[in-house]
């Protein structure tokens, strides 16, 4: 039992749940479906981290594994990205994509909870079995869902944040939102690279990536929603 496989994911979970609280609080004050969907996504993020920490402390549990794979591996990126679609995309895209995501999520839940599992497969030539991974899933057609949801989530969340940052930069306005979106995009990439590192057998890569991601996205959200004082003197208008 080491710090990375036990306490780190629990810290990620706590940060994620706190982040979700602030996002949903903002939704309650200002409305906006993007805030509600982001809040749901961050709850999923927290569930994933909690399950990882549970496994690190208490070992294998079939329900915990299924919850981790569904929420942490499959759904979280896509739901966070869907929030960005609702913020940035023009009609009818949010109306079209949300029902598809909900249907896909229900299908993913069915596949994950009906899959045959073998926890002995968590230990491979590259993995010690101290961290959760999708190797425990025996049934075909389950792990192949993950890249579909994650690619959609990466393109929409990271792409949307980068696009927003570019638009604000091009107009040279709202610097706090430029910086905030850059932090959100970077934070969203961190778990993706952590997952890739985990695939290559780098110990702790996924959990460290997830913690970094939660922190950066939280800071980015705070930065984007908190105006900065403009320090650059503006040129005087010509008479």
């Amino acid at each position, binding site marked *: 039992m080491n710090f990375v496989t036990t306490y780190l994911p629990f810290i990620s979970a706590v940060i994620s749940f706190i982040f979700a609280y602030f996002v949903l609080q903002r939704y309650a004050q200002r409305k906006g479906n993007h805030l509600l969907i982001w809040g749901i996504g961050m709850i999923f993020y927290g569930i994933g981290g909690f399950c990882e920490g549970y496994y690190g402390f208490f070992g294998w549990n079939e329900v915990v594994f299924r919850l981790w794979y569904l929420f942490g591996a499959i759904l979280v990126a896509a739901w966070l990205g869907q929030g960005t679609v609702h913020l940035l995309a023009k009609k009818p895209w949010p109306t079209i994509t949300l029902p598809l995501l909900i249907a896909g999520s229900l299908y993913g839940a069915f596949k994950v909870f009906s899959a045959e599992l073998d926890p002995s497969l968590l230990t491979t*030539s590259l993995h010690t079995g101290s961290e959760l991974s999708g190797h425990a899933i025996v049934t075909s057609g389950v792990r192949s869902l993950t*890249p579909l949801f994650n*690619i959609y989530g990466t393109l929409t969340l990271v792409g949307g944040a980068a696009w927003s*940052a570019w638009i604000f930069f091009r*107009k040279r306005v709202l*610097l706090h939102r*430029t910086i905030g979106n850059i932090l959100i995009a970077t934070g969203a990439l961190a778990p993706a690279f952590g997952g*890739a590192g985990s695939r290559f057998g780098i110990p702790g890569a996924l959990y460290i990536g997830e913690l970094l991601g939660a922190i950066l996205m939280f800071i980015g959200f705070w930065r984007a929603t908190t105006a900065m004082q403009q320090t650059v003197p503006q040129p005087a208008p010509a008479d």
Partner: protein
Amino acid sequence: MSKSKQEAKIEKGRQYSPVYEKLVPIAIGVIVILVVGMLLLAGAIALDLIPLG
């Protein structure tokens, strides 16, 4: 001059501070490169082009 034309003239000359003028486009460029790299990596893993344990 109307107020909106005055505001447009101000906006035209608007700049971030020099540090952000340099860092922001670099950061956005790096993010785009990382996204493309991540998608290529995901594709390579999905197509079994990269052997994994």
